[in-house]
């Protein structure tokens, strides 16, 4: 039995494991020539965009390690980052100082929200992803309540530029002129006409080192054990619930820093419809990089962010050149973001089901012999 299925299984397993990146590489290989973009332009754009997004995507790694799946609740961190940015804009602290102040202000908020999120996810074991996603939607309601109704009333905002003309609530789009690109341009570097945001990449590098180091600590080992099997870890003396909460807190705090880095690159704060999309794009990028719900590595993040943004850059132009409707490319990339998440989740769940059947079959075989 096993020999008959062995070879076929190996091939199907290889394809299933790497299906998503393979599909994307093929797609992009066709779309780049059609779009007509030049190589230096694409490289420059990818360097900027990878710097903008990598930190956010890296924040997803720890919960995956702890077996909690993709943390769609990272938007909670993104929201605390945005609230901190609004406060810093109100206080008028410019430049990199403002950014780091925002991070400092946001950290306690992110820790609190991460703890809350962890406690809730502990009550929904086995359905963490859908719960974290709904929690994200729930919290965007709370965020809107705070920013649109409380700020300027309960929370004093004295900078009139930020406040809606009715006297309370924050405007739709805030310009972050004083903080824009302050981290990216902190250490300017140009190689062959392509500028590189050195300081941003240093922060990303630091985070990678941190994640790598964290995996080697006691807590990191515990997290991996919890991700493997909760019952066994509990029996061997690991505090499962506490470990899971810590994973979510770390993820939320990192997502909060990631959002602040993202915003300093973009330069405007979309107050009401930015944060809830963050998780979708970060998750899609990570999955395009070949990660699954149970296994994600640092290389997955970087492969994913490059492929994702190549697709983002190239598809509107390709759509326009092929069919003559620019809007199609816009819809197309939204479709791809959602579609890739559906595809990757379905492939993973299907694989797990198959593996379970395979073990069941092998158990049955042993019984018979």
């Amino acid at each position, binding site marked *: 039995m096993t020999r008959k299925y062995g070879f076929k299984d190996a091939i199907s397993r290889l394809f299933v494991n790497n299906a998503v990146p393979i599909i994307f590489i093929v797609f992009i290989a066709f779309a780049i020539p059609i779009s007509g973009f030049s190589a230096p332009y694409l490289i420059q754009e990818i360097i900027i965009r990878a710097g903008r997004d990598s930190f956010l995507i890296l924040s997803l790694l720890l919960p995956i390690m702890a077996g909690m799946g993709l943390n769609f609740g990272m938007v909670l961190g993104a929201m605390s980052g945005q609230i901190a940015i609004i406060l810093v804009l109100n206080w008028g602290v410019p430049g990199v100082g403002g950014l780091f102040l925002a991070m400092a202000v946001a950290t306690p908020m992110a820790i609190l929200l991460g703890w809350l999120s962890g406690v809730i996810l502990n009550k929904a074991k086995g359905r963490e992803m*859908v719960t974290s*996603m709904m929690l994200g939607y*729930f919290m965007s309601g709370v965020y*809107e309540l705070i920013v649109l*109704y409380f700020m300027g009333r309960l929370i004093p905002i004295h900078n009139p530029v930020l406040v809606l003309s009715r006297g309370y609530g924050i405007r739709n789009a805030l310009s972050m002129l004083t903080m824009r690109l302050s981290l990216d341009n902190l250490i300017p570097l140009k190689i062959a006409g392509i500028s590189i945001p050195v300081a941003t990449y240093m922060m990303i590098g630091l985070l990678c080192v941190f994640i790598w180091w964290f995996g080697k600590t006691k807590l990191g080992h515990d997290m991996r054990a919890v991700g493997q099997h909760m019952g066994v870890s509990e029996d061997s003396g690991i505090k499962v619930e506490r470990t899971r909460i810590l994973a979510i807190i770390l993820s939320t705090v990192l997502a909060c820093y990631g959002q602040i880095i993202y915003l300093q690159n973009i330069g405007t704060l979309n107050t009401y419809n930015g944060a809830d999309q963050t998780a979708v794009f970060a998750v899609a990028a990570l999955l395009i990089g070949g990660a699954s719900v149970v296994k994600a590595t640092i290389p997955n993040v970087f492969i994913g962010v490059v492929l994702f943004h190549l697709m983002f850059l190239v598809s509107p132009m390709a759509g326009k050149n092929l069919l003559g409707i620019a809007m199609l490319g816009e819809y197309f990339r939204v479709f791809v973001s959602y579609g890739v998440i559906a595809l990757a989740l*379905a492939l993973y769940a299907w694989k797990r089901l198959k593996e379970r059947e395979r073990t069941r079959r092998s158990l049955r075989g042993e019984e018979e012999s």
Partner: protein
Amino acid sequence: MHRLRQFIDQAGWPRIIIGLLLVSLFAVAPSVGVSLSASLTDTIVRFGMNGVMVLAMIPMVQAGCGLNFGLPLGIIAGLLGATISIELGLVGVAGFALAIVIAILFALIFGWGYGVLLNHVKGDEMMIATYVGFSSVSFMCIMWMVLPYHSPTMIWGYSGQGLRTTIAVSGFWSQILDNFLAIHIGPNFMIPTGTILFFVLMAWIMWAFFHTKAGTAMTAVGSNPDYARASGISVDRMRTTSVILSTVYGAIGILLYEQSYGFISLYNGPFFMALPAVAAILIGGASANKANITNVIIGTVLFQGILTMTPSVVNAVIHSDVADVVRLIVSNGMIVYALTRATRKSR
């Protein structure tokens, strides 16, 4: 006292709080100048608009596929039915009936594919359903632009290509059910008899189905798949049937919604339409693995009641549009609550 405690345990605090909130809103309404009869009419009309989409949750919950976050797929089938019927230029009862027939056909096909997919991903249905819904809505965003529609009431005037984001059904079958045998009492109070009757019919079909052999088998699959398989029920086939049924109800539900609302919302319109339906059935006392028609009726009345009453009362009291945010928080909070409460089933 003991009985009260038992009732609280059974209903759960969030439901009681929401119920009390609704009662107090109705109590406060007249004193702040909100017309009670208009509010009641609104609640009843909205109940009729949304009821069938909430009913669509029952089959999948009962068959153990969880809450149907992929409802937008059924909604898309309904939208296809509506637009094709308008494209063919049929008006009145014939137009609406044709829309329903076409919608059901599409829903059967979509639901079958969706059901087969969900059979391959047992245990993770809800998450994948959500993203099946999202990706099909965004895929249809492309399709609404490219599909060869020609009716001038539906396509963009200046480019002559692609459907509009909202299409008025006023010349075709606007409020065709709402106005059927409608009962008017006084200037402000109206019961949309036709829509309510249609809901009752759909609920009766659902009730009757769950009392047939197939329906009982479906419930058996949901409560204990191993037992069901042992007694000779094809688990996968029952699950697929439940998904198809749910998708068909979603398709009919959106048509009912549109005829009452008067407009068809395309493109990003269906994106988050699953969430109010999910929230409504949960508020009505359903869980992720058990739901019945009573849950649907109680939940839809409570949820839509809150939806109509909070804006008008809050506006009258503090002159603020904060109610919309409150609605989001209540409905999504309810879903989070239900997900944390649901006991994990044996897989």
